[in-house]
């Protein structure tokens, strides 16, 4: 187990404090979490074996500071906040990995600041839209259907680990509130009601070598979007992962981790 440190960084004219989970050793790497919030998982653990991983908690998702996100108006503000954050962390030029909502954010950063992103890994990102393949808003899924939308194997070990809730009633309520609030602070604020906030106009600016990772059985954000991203990002490569849903980096860790490491090392 690597030692994970909780680092606080002041951003946004010192109005918003961002907590950054930091671990590992080696060259720096930034990971941007999805709509469920940040959890230190085996994928990050694996990356930290050869990189210094910086995994910020999006504003609003840090326990005890739910209203930080209210200071931001829209996705633009969030992109600037993350640019501040890279400055404060002293990361002039760095590889960025983003998952789902974090993938959209990573793509935006790479399009707005092409010189700052050395490599880009997008894992099942949102951010583009096709009328013929609409993405169903995650908030419209009844809770009992969510595991099927998220995982290749909704009964599997990974699904159980990700969806686990505390047994104690009070604690379960708190955990549930944190999860809902993470969704609120991501898609409920910046990607509502449709996750198309203009990335399609800016995506051509991405210069970083890009790897797109998608679970072949992603029912939340259909894999056809892998092609959509690849088509628009010059030189992007797609890794389509068998037997994986919306969290391929966890459901097929053994396959995704080496693929990502190889890409970053090349």
């Amino acid at each position, binding site marked *: 187990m690597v030692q994970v440190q909780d680092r606080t960084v002041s951003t946004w004219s010192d109005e918003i404090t961002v907590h950054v989970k930091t671990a590992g050793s080696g060259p720096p790497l930034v990971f941007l979490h999805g709509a469920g919030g940040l959890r230190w998982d085996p994928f990050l653990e694996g990356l930290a074996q050869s990189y210094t991983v910086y995994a910020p908690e999006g504003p609003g998702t840090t326990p005890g500071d*739910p209203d930080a996100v*209210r200071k931001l*108006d829209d996705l633009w503000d969030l992109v600037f906040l993350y640019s501040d954050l890279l400055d404060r962390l002293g990361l002039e030029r760095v590889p960025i990995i983003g998952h789902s909502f974090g993938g959209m954010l990573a793509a935006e950063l790479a399009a707005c600041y092409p010189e700052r992103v050395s490599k880009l890994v997008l894992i099942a990102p949102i951010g583009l839209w096709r009328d013929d393949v609409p993405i169903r*808003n995650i908030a419209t899924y009844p809770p009992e259907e969510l595991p099927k939308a998220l995982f290749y194997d909704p009964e599997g070990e990974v699904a159980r680990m990700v969806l686990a809730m505390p047994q104690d009633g*009070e604690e379960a309520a708190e955990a549930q509130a944190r999860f809902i*609030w993470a969704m*609120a602070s991501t898609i*409920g604020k910046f990607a*509502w*009601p449709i996750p198309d906030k203009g990335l399609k106009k800016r995506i051509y600016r991405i210069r970083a070598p890009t790897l797109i990772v998608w679970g072949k059985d992603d029912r939340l954000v259909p894999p056809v979007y892998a092609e959509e991203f690849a088509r628009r990002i010059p030189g992007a490569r797609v890794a389509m992962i068998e037997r994986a849903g919306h969290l391929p980096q966890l459901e097929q860790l053994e396959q995704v981790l080496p693929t990502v490491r190889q890409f970053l090392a090349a």
Partner: protein
Amino acid sequence: MKISMFHLMPHRELPDDFEKRYESVWVTPPWWELADPERVSQYYNWSLDELIYAAKMGFDGICTNEHHQNAYGFMPNPNLMGSALAKMTNGLDVAIVQMGSTLPTSPPIRVAEEYAMIDQISGGRLIAGMPLGTSMDVNFIYGVPPMDQRPRWREAHDLIVKAWTTNEIFAWNGRYYQYGMVNIWPRPVQQPHPPIWVPGAGSVSTWDLVAELGHVYCFLSYFGAKAAKRFAEGFWEAVARRGLDLNPYRFGFLQLVCVSETDARAEEEYGRHVEYFYHKDLHIPLHLFAAPGHQDYRSLVSSLKNPAIVEAWLALKEMRFRDFNEQSFVIAGSPATVRDRLVEEVIRGLRVGNLMVLLQIGSMPHELTLKNIDLFAREVLPHLRHYWEDEGWENHWWPKKLLKAEGAASSS
């Protein structure tokens, strides 16, 4: 005491197996499978006629409300209904209670204008409802990011009040709205502005907001007075915390009511319509109630720790008329039963100065609705009207013109 008739304008003839065949009454019910346009035309006209009848029978106010893509209530713009009602009730001392334009989804200066128009057409009888809106309407249908819903409401509210009360043209440079030259025509008849009521569904944050702004909070619950006890106490605590008086007119409450000649007759006549309402009209999946961010963090934690409401929703389909009546979701019976229970459970029990009664319920046909209105107006309303008078509370949240008319009538 002020008593108004509330109307949802529902589909009155949903199929018997509606709740088995369809996922929801709200957001997703398919129009072409469920609605017959000619019947719907009839529903609108029945609904307007029922409210006008209530006005003629002496109700203090008549209420419309706004919902979207909803088979139990489809007045997407309540002001279209309200303007017709304003015109049709000129000469009657009845308030037009718009409950009302959902602020986060409507251009604020349009709301200011439309409300001013209704106030003009009615000659100063408007009550300006300013709902925050449900998650279904605002987030899932109108696409407003849930996290922006409350701040948008607040900004729209401030802008509307300023547009009504500022003589000079002004510029509005807000977070959500920018207008270069605000100078609305018309302005309201009522000065400085019409009374403002804020309907809500029991959110902790809304009580504080309404208490702070000094408006009326209206608890629009379908679960009756017993379930509302905790909420009413919370609201009154918020009022007391701010050092405000406990004027009962600060609080409004919606109650379903059915009146017949006898208690037994009430069950016979209204039973199935009440069951239709709770089984079909409230057939809404829980996850559509609150998109992530619709409730602020404090309210979210509070509702997750109090699963009572969720459990109540899940239990509805198992309940029958007698359960709804016993648990006060509906107050049904003879005039004597209804007035005693309204006083005991609602007016005194919750400290309600502004009572709203839902008298057309679910599938209730036009004729039966008229009967309900008629009996309520003749046999119930006169007995409740003077409640609170002996305590000497002044109603600051009612059109002044109507208070004056009432004063003139009672002294003559």
